[in-house]
């Protein structure tokens, strides 16, 4: 090959040199990336291996080692599921309505605050904003007192089925109310990007405020619904604080409370606790998978 410059090196040599440089860079990059993956996945991995080991296996092997056939068992999953079963059902019963309601009311409120014109909007918006920053701990006592005064179980005494579940209803209402501000803010930022001319066109086409919401705004906010549903579901599902304060009867224990029950008083059975943690986390993962595509759209603002 002919030399292309004064140094006497051929083009081929220089390409090879360049490639070597590039390769070193890449190798370092991938090494770092693999290291990070390992770092983040190791607790999950340890949890997963532990959940498939017997108590003896857990004591005799390192948590990161996979279970050998001798120590392998699915018993921890069966035991954990047996304890969590009731909590899972109770959680689904209050988390689903609380999530949907707070997203829906948040969407209503945001629509009213962006696309309808009336006096005093700013004042209302400020109250919503303040709601986002209200710490859970600060409302615990007033919240307990409020529900004692309301006495939901007493009010529902005519229908024993509901009265027995009063704790869960209280949780539903509390979480809905607590979720509305953040949902409103999320929807509001999204609705501000929706064209005003489109809303005006619908008005001139004869649609009233509710018609515009139902036929124009609601269908266009599906990506934002995915965002709020995932966010709210995870928040409400993982909450333990409100449940501790509001749920009194054992039959109404939610999943986070049941998970807490797995903690033995004498011996720590880590394998059962790990299996329980995975079971309790499963629904939030399913929600991510189901709404993931819409979620990505909502976050990037594409529609």
């Amino acid at each position: 090959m002919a030399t292309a410059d004064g140094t006497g090196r051929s083009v081929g040599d220089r390409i090879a040199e360049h490639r070597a440089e590039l390769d070193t860079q890449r190798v370092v990059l991938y090494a770092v990336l693999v290291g990070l993956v390992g770092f983040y996945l190791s607790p999950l991995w340890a949890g997963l291996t532990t959940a498939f080991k017997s108590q003896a296996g857990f004591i005799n092997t390192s948590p990161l080692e996979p279970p050998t056939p001798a120590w392998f068992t699915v018993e921890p999953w069966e035991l954990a599921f047996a304890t969590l079963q009731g909590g899972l059902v109770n959680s689904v019963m209050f988390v689903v309505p609380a999530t949907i309601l707070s997203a829906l009311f948040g969407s209503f409120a945001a629509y009213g605050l962006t696309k309808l014109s009336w006096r005093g909007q700013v004042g209302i918006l400020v109250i919503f904003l303040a709601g986002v920053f209200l710490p859970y701990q600060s409302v615990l006592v007033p919240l307990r007192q409020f529900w004692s005064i309301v006495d939901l179980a007493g009010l529902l005494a005519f229908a024993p089925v509901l009265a027995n579940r009063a704790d869960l209803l209280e949780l539903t209402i509390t979480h809905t109310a607590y979720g509305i501000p953040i949902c409103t803010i999320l929807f509001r930022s999204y609705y501000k990007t929706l064209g005003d001319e489109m809303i005006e066109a619908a008005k001139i086409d004869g649609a009233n405020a509710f018609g515009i919401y139902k036929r124009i705004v609601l269908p266009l906010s599906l990506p934002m619904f995915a965002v709020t549903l995932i966010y709210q579901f995870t928040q409400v599902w993982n909450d333990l604080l409100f449940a501790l304060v509001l749920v009194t009867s054992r039959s109404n224990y939610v999943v986070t409370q049941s998970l807490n029950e797995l903690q033995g008083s004498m011996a720590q059975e880590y394998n059962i606790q790990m299996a329980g943690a995975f079971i309790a986390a499963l629904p939030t993962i399913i929600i991510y998978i189901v709404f993931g595509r819409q979620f990505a759209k909502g976050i990037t603002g594409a529609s």
Partner: protein
Amino acid sequence: MAELTLGNVTKRFDDVVAVDDVSIEIDDGEFLVLVGPSGCGKSTTLRMIAGLETISDGRIAIDGDVVNDAPAQQRDIAMVFQSYALYPHMTVRENMRFGLEESTTLEKAEMDSRVEDAAETLEIDDLLERKPGELSGGQQQRVALGRAIVRDPAVFLMDEPLSNLDAKLRSGMRTELQRLQEELGVTTVYVTHDQTEAMTMSDRIAILDGGELQQVATPLECYHRPTNRFVAGFIGEPSMNFFDVSLEDGRLVDSDIEFEYPLSSVVRDSVGETTELVLGIRPEDVELLDARETAHDFPVVVDVVEPMGNENNLLVRFPDTDTESTFNVIVDGMCHVEAGKRYVIRIPESAIHVFDRETGAALHNREIEDETELLASRV
């Protein structure tokens, strides 16, 4: 189809008066273009007619019924927006049917046939099942028009509907819109800042400036008989040339450049007692000569020649003035003109306009043969 009346309509935003005491009578089936520079209140006026803005003062009536307090939903109007404002999650068919579903109780089949008729008229019948995102700008424009037509409203409102199209498409759509409006015979109010659209499309033009109505007249009347200096300058491209002059002994004089323009008694009479004046002449009315012949001829220097093919657009100035004070002259495309050379121009007295410098009011407009015929006609 209906008459539309604006009576002393005023819109105030806090302290700012956006539309000031505007009165226009729009006949049944008329195509009225509201035109003016940006911020002149033309869009606000349209939005008040639509019911998207409240009216601070005055009244708006459709077919004699005052609609001041009627919400947009009840005004029996349709509007085409500059951004088209299509519903992105609906197909073209659903977009066009939306208005019928919300404002009428028609049978489903009847709605569909109306949508299909309108789509055929606009040649978008093959796009009915597509969504707006899959359409080109011109096609979206047609869908927006279709959405308005399907409703068969009393009044069409259009807010700069062509400004998002490229130049070629725009001139085609201009003709088509005009044809469509004539066919449908629906009273139309069309807002634009483009004076070409105003001239070519309208039955009458309403010119707004600073929220005030300047003139309502046929396009040629606005062109040849402007009521004031603003209208004279706004209508016409390139715009009319203006010279600040004073009246001395029956002549228009600009002492700085030794400009003297004798006036005949007819013009002098219409000017009256006012002495501080503005002389106006359209570029195409100026004639280019080789030598001075009359008192209305003046020596000039040609600064720039812009050949357009059919005509030459000249930037000229009087000798001994700076390049800031050039004015426009349009001469025939076959006429050879060299930049930098001296020529003589004639400002024919029959074509001059004279304005009051202080108020801007037109004191004298050009002479026209067959005046009534010309001014009543549509281009």
